[in-house]
């Protein structure tokens, strides 16, 4: 078999990779890998009706890693000469505290990734700048047409085209090409000195045509404008414990913060997670089944393989309320004696692999979304959110609503200002009493941060009712 053509992009041959891996196969080293990455990112942005900024960024480099027991030795370089690779290998090997390896690693079995989830031609991702400029201009016009109170429209369109090659001491050599793009729009509405912002966006591992399909870009523009206009009439949010109905889609950020991070294997191996030792225990109500699935075509959080070359999959995290499994990378799977789930991810060649989420969502239930709202006497209906955060160790998490309404006597009434919701991860899903039949995945805007590393992710949720959660408004 021939080596992946992508390796040649880095000016490196299969023999070079074997040479470095041989050097790393010292006594005490359990595993080693080389991660070659080339990334071209482009962006254009618009404000005040003009597309005034365009930028392009090129990065290329290699990350060299060796693990020995719990230890990881890691080095990276943006130079790819044989000498640079050897230097990096010797740094990585340092942690095993043993002399240069002499063993031969297996001859690579060239593998293709298990999936082909985003077959998008490069030319369809990196379209000419004038096409991007035209897209942003149409967005500006559409948002302003939606309502004359829209006074400024800020939009940006970002693309990235990433080629990765992973060579491991297990004898695999596998490459993937990972396109990614995102359109993000914010509108400022102004009326009588009251200024409000509304935002919307979307994207995925898709080509440029995705944004023009069914005039999706114009839908996004109207959504951002609509949220800004709604917020012009928002009243103070309530404070205290109350029932909250979360709309489908992006509000799935609840799952990401409340349970997702706590189920990443590293925290559980170190027993620093509030979910440590809870496998097989009830952590959610019977109506909750939650999965992490990296295999959904064209999704922002999807991957044909993770950054260690492991095929991505669908992992059941919680099944009918019972905690079933953790998300793993190779190091943690080996140390914990559990299976690989394809969740070993890294931001770039400059960062180490960590267990990370892909697309995390709750499966649809049986309730009618309207019935869910009707069941609440006084509470909050939260439609859209900004960001969220969690303290893994004590399990406390927050997520902040950017569009929300009061529910009064079973009806959605006035919009309220944004408010932060706070809860305890291992408890909150036990308070989910109704799950809608309307599962929706988010539009493809999520970026997750952990240990200083950002990776694209997805979330999803049907309409759900949480019987009680603390809402951080200002009105008692």
């Amino acid at each position, binding site marked *: 078999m021939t080596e992946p053509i992508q390796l040649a992009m880095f000016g490196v041959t299969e023999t070079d990779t074997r040479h470095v891996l041989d050097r790393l196969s010292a006594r005490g080293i359990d595993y080693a890998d080389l991660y070659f990455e080339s990334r071209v990112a482009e962006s*254009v942005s618009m*404000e005040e009706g*003009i*597309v005034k*900024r*365009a*930028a*392009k*960024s*090129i990065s*290329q480099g290699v990350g060299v890693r060796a693990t020995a027991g*719990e*230890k*990881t*030795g*890691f*080095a990276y370089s*943006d130079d790819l000469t044989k000498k640079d690779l050897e230097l990096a290998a010797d740094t990585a090997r*340092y*942690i095993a505290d043993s002399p240069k390896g002499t063993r031969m690693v297996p001859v690579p079995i060239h593998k293709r990734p298990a999936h082909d989830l985003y077959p998008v031609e490069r030319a369809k991702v990196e379209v000419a*700048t004038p096409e991007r400029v035209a897209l942003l201009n149409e967005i500006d016009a559409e948002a302003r047409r939606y309502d004359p109170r829209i006074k400024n429209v*800020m939009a940006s369109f970002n693309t990235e085209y990433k080629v990765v090659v992973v060579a491991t001491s297990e004898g695999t050599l596998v490459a993937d090409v990972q396109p990614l793009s995102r359109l993000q729009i914010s509108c400022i509405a*102004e009326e009588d000195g009251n*200024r*409000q*912002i509304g935002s919307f966006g979307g994207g995925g591992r898709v080509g440029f045509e995705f944004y023009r399909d069914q005039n999706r870009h114009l839908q996004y523009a109207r959504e951002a404008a609509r949220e800004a206009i709604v917020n012009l009439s928002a009243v103070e*949010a309530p*404070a*205290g414990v109350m029932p909250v109905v979360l709309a489908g889609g992006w509000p799935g950020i609840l799952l990401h913060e409340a349970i997702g*991070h706590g189920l990443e294997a590293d925290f559980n191996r*170190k027993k*620093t997670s509030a979910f440590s030792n809870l496998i097989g225990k009830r952590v959610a109500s019977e109506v909750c089944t939650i999965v992490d699935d990296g295999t959904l075509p064209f999704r922002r959080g999807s991957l044909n393989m993770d950054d260690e070359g492991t095929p991505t999959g669908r992992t059941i995290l919680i099944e009918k309320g019972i905690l079933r499994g953790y998300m793993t990378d190779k190091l943690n799977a080996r140390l914990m004696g559990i299976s690989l789930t394809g969740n070993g991810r890294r931001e770039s060649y*400059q960062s180490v692999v960590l267990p990370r989420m892909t697309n995390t969502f709750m499966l649809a239930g049986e309730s009618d979304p309207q019935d869910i709202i009707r069941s609440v006497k006084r509470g909050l209906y939260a439609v859209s959110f*900004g*960001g*969220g*955060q969690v*303290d*893994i*160790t*004590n399990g*406390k998490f*927050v*997520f*902040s609503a950017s569009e929300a309404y009061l529910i009064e006597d079973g009806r959605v009434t006035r919009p309220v*200002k*944004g*408010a*932060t919701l*706070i809860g*305890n991860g291992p408890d909150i899903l036990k308070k989910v009493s109704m799950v809608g039949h309307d599962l929706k995945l988010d539009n493809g805007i999520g970026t997750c941060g*952990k*240990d*200083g590393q950002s990776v694209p992710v997805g979330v999803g949720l049907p309409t759900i009712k949480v019987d009680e959660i*603390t*809402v*951080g408004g*200002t*009105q*008692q």
Partner: protein
Amino acid sequence: MELRPELQSGRSATESDGGYAQLAADILSRAKACGATEADVVVADGQTLSVQVRVGVVDRLTKAREKRLGLRVFVGKRSATSSTCDFSRESLERLVAETCTLAKTVVEDPMSGLPEANQMAKDQPDLELYDGTVLSTENQIEWAKRGEAAAFAADERVTNSEGAEFESSSGRVVLANSHGFIGSYNGSSFSLSVAPIASDARTSSMQRGVWYDVQRKFARLASAESIGREAARRAVRRLGARRVATKRVPVVFDQETAGSLLANLCSAVSGYGLYKRASFLLDQLGRTIASDLITVYDDGRMVGGLGSRPFDGEGVATRKNTIVERGVLTSYLLDTYSGKKMGMSSTGNAARSVGESPSVGPTNFYLVPDTKTPEQIISSVKEGLYLTELIGFGINMVTGDYSRGASGFWIENGELAFPVEEITIAGNLKQMLKDIEMVGNDLVFRGRVASPTIKIAEMMVAGN
């Protein structure tokens, strides 16, 4: 998820520029040949050694060298930026040509352009930003081990650890533009952070504590033992935290959380948010925006400062700006572009992460301390919250609406009574700044934005 000190390079007049000055000059002349009317180039490189120790053994060792070049070109009033880590001649020539082509595809912006030639930094004082101390891997491992061991030794309830990390890094920045300006500086940093976990045997609950120090000079770094002990104290004191009933009370922000509030003020006075009309401090220059106890400086030339540098991301001389004086907003933070949009001059606050267009950022942005000790401030509160941690992103910079997850201690009759968690605090930044009724004497720089303890008269605390 993890507290990481943010670092920025500083300068040393004595270091050579490693041939980057010539490289920058070549790029500028190449850009001119491709049709650029103005351009600037930033070249940065650096090296980092980081060791992480967990429960007494090395968990992770990371060593890296990196370099990056950023280019900004103007073709008349159109501009584009680019960056690369590939310094090969062919690749750079292609990049210059592509960037000029890219500039020609965007729309003209009458405000675009380099700073005026007379605004460029003329002096390059030694701000003591660089320390050439090279620590061996073993030495760094030793520091991290001692920090973590001190945390375990400090209290028997410290039973686990997320680890201790020691990082040393150094680097250099060279900036040149088509006015003929060329400047360079070197910087370094040394940091230790320790993150122990305390557990309560009775409730089997866990709490994490983090403490750290970061300094440009190795000799100034706090001892590993003091950092470890403080991290342990911060973890242990959270054990047994509970919720409190929803009510309106005074809130005392400790140094760390007050620093976060000051960072919100910093964003609100940054030029880009203002000209886009996306700041709650719009049209407030010369007006009272905070209590008269509040005076805020941004000082780009503080000796040894983590945010100090002789010139900003466009080569404009840095200086000490008074942002708020006795409650009155006296200056925004501006770069050339946002300054022009506001009809003003740059304040020397262009921040430039290589490869991006300049934006605005603080240098050393701080609230001037007053005379009260933190204990005196706490003792002034009959019932209220002593805030030590904030989580989440519930801040609307357009309206000032503020709602964040919080934890800390409940104050009863002027004393810390018990730890609290899973609560939120909410208000509006416009009102919160005016409601600051006490400022502490405990200003310490552990980053580019710093504040002493402060007390806000009243906020809504939501719990059960």
